């Protein structure tokens, strides 16, 4: 499903190249549940952003679902990730001005889904996450765990094939964290490929494979 070949990312700091990612090779197959681990600053988030096409590598080959991403134009790339990739963030990143319902609906709007269909899809997912009663609340009126549930619901609304999660439980207590991991597990069983960044061995245990990053290299 996803392949990195010689992917590097560097910044010019005071005239010197500082490598964040250094010559990363990596293959992730459809249906895997991968956890990326490593010390702070080792480049985990950067790697995930590149996988999600939010950031560009400085060098290397990037394939996603059979397409050479490094050759695609901005527009085609955005088309590709819009359809197939969902994001979950540590800080939830919900839009404060929108209600729960509207937050979840947003990706569908950008994919030009018809209003009636949107209604059905959002209703469906609200039901699945047992949040029908909260649909008209604003993010600030929810607990952290509930916000992250909305974040996941939003990531899943367009039925992505790949779910990218950057420390999804980082801001949650352990019980909330477990709930989230159970959901991931279930999703993975339904066929969604999941890549998560985590600091917790326990969370990594839910996955099928662990990738360790150290100073921008896979160890």
């Amino acid at each position, binding site marked *: 499903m996803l392949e990195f070949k010689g992917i590097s990312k560097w910044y010019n700091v005071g005239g010197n190249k500082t490598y964040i990612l250094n010559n990363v090779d990596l293959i992730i197959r459809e249906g895997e549940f991968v956890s990326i681990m490593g010390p702070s600053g080792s480049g985990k*988030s950067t790697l995930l*952003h590149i996988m*999600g096409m*939010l*950031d560009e590598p400085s060098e290397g080959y990037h394939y996603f679902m059979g397409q050479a991403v490094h050759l695609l134009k901005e*527009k085609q790339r*955005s088309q590709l*990730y*819009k359809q197939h990739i969902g*994001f979950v*963030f540590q800080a939830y*990143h*919900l*839009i*404060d*001005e*929108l209600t729960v319902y*509207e937050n979840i*609906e*947003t*990706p569908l*709007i*950008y*994919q030009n889904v018809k209003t009636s269909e949107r209604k059905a899809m959002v209703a469906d997912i609200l039901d699945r996450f047992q949040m029908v009663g909260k649909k008209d609340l604003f993010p600030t009126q929810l607990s952290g765990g509930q916000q992250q549930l909305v974040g996941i619901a*939003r990531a899943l609304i367009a039925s992505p094939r790949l779910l990218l999660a950057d420390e999804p439980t980082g801001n949650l207590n352990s019980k909330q964290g477990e709930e989230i991991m159970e959901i991931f597990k279930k999703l993975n069983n339904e066929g969604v490929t999941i890549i998560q960044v985590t600091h917790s061995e326990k969370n990594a245990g839910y996955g099928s494979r662990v990738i360790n990053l150290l100073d921008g290299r896979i160890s």
Partner: protein
Amino acid sequence: MLKNYFRVALRNFWRNKVFSAINILGLAIGISSALVIYLIVQYDLSFDKFHKDGDRIYRVVTDIKFAGEPFYNSGVTDPFAVAARKEISGIELCSNFYTADDIKVVIPNSTSEKQGIFRKQKNVTYADEYYFKLFPFYKWIAGNTQDPLKAPYQTVITESRARTYFPGLDPKAVIGKQIIYDDSLKTSVSAVIRDPEEITDFTFREFISMATMDANHMHNEEWGSVTSSNQFFVKLAPNQSIAKLNSELSALLKKNNKNEQTSSTNYMIEQLQPLSDIHFNDHYDNFGQRLAQKNTLWGLSLVAGFLLLLGCINFINLTTAQASQRAKEIGVRKTMGSTQKQLVFQFLSETLFTTLIAAFVSAIITPWLLQIFSDFIPAGLHFDLLNQPQLILFMIALVLVVTLLSGFYPAMILSGFRPVLVLKNQAFGGTAKTRRTWIRKTLTVSQFVIAQFLIMATLAVTKQIHFTLSKDLGFKKDAIITMRIPWNNRKPDPNRDVLLNEINKMPEVQLASLAEPPASTNTSSRTIKYKDGKKEIETDVQLKYGDTNYLSLYRLKLLAGRNIQESDSEREYIINETYAKILGFNNPEDAIGKMVGEDKKIPIVGVVSNFHQSSLHTPIKPLAICSAKNNTYSISVALKSSNGDSKNWQNAFAKMGVVYKRLYPEEDFKYDFFDESIAKFYKSEQDISRLLKWATGLAIFISCLGLLGLVIYTTNLRMKEISVRKVLGASVRNLITLLSTDFIRLVIISFFVATPIAWWSMNKWLQNYAYRTELSWWLFPLSGFIIILIALLTLSIQTFRAAVANPTKALRSE
């Protein structure tokens, strides 16, 4: 999707109530002024735009040079029109009409309220049979529609006149009814037309056939005398050369005007004036209608543009300043798959939302603004959104333009955030921020440049007006009234002596004189020749009629010679210094006893010191004062000081009114205070000054709103810093200084930008005056001081609040 955008817009709008209010108020003021000024400009520009083949219709006007002095006359000499019709080719159609002002109308056996006597009817003209062919926009209601003006003693009237003269009669029944003009011309109504509803200067309501004038020998057959009453319009055949026709028309005049000698300083030529020029060109009058000034229209448009711009700048500044608050939303939306285009669209629709509310507010405040601009608003103009579809279109266009102008830049900035940076909280590191604040600062400086410029201009204009009104004009102008006496066939008119005597006897009156005011807008003048033995000096000299009391009433200073003696017609002159100098007498004494004039030699008996005969736009011209009772139709009255009790004067006016009415029962008693008449010379300056004051006030208001918004924003951002500093011992004054310095620096920069621009343009404006005030240096620092003071006050609203706030509050929340 739009619904979604508007929902977010609405929520953002409520969340930032203060900023929204600032944006809306600024934009609403801008939009309303644009609306009002659009109404005015559009109204004046649509005059006589509807005529069929209007681009080929011209008026023939006469330009005269007389002793080197140019004169412009909107008419032609009497025989000219008939000759031109016969002899000039290239004219497809032409019409000649003669305006008749204040004509007396009598309707025999009338049942109307005034018993059928209308003393001073306006909008009456003698028109030839071609008039309605050249101007076919009139709609016929009844009567002869083919040649209603061909025969003598025919009159065409409009529906409204028909109602006035023949109340209750059907238009058809009006045909054939008699109308008597000036007690002698017995005409009958040949047709009734609808009152034109178009916006036009052709406001005639009664057309007497020109043949009536012919039949009564009312024409002046001389080729040498022009009157603006005699109007001549032509419609050219297609593709004519205007220059060629101008010279042919002038040649026709020259050929016939035999006894006139022409030279480079003395000539008379004909010119074609385009129909579209008639409403604007102040060289030529306009059958007495209001002339619009294109300069004023430009000035007004500029003011509207400025105010709109100021509102847009507020919006741009506040929106970009707040960008960080929106950054997260943008980042998230982008990761959810939004393209930059979609985001730009979203922010533009938010701007549209704000602008629409502003437009709504402006629809409410526009009637109020109309009051402010009322001096500039022509009588025929109305504001009624519902019934003026074109106004609604303009409003829509305005809303779109304002939306783009104020929304585009913030939309580009906001939608340009890179999601990774936003999500990593780095959107505000590095260069992006400094560039944006730089632009924001520039915009703020431009706002204050505009505001400063307007303050400086207002100060300069006010100073010039003060200068003109307080300048010693060379005569007394306080406590003097002037009145007119009706023109009378009986000469001498015994009533005027009675009136003068009775007024002179009143205890409130110091002195009354049969005299024209020494300064007035309409002057009569004449060419006077003087032979000093060697050469001949021909000068255009203004004539003032006054009796023996003239000099003492107006306190004119006699430099040499003696006062004039009373006379029924011109017998001796007192001249002014300027004329004496032109005649070559540097010492006034030398002029005494010299004879001027050709056929009738008139002696110079005195020389007065110069005074200003008209507005300070024009220099002092050569002038002669003479006593000619038979030609004098005004009385000047100097009143005794009222000692602040205006009852005395009111008393006197009432008594004068009674006497006047007794002597001239057909006239209304009217009088003018002389100093007020002089102030009216400067009506356009007073108007400009009023407009400038309002524009300045609004500009300062909008700019300060923007300043307030920015300072609220920065103090909120710096609340933690302020609290820490306070805990460390900073005083309230320290903090206010800290928060205000940056803004005040911008205002000071704007002062240095505005000063040279204002200095240059006000100097240019003052060139319009032959006598002008100095552009004193202190004007500029004064305006700078005013604006800095206002800015400081505005800033202090917020900075003071921030400085005295309890520091623990801000620190605890961290």
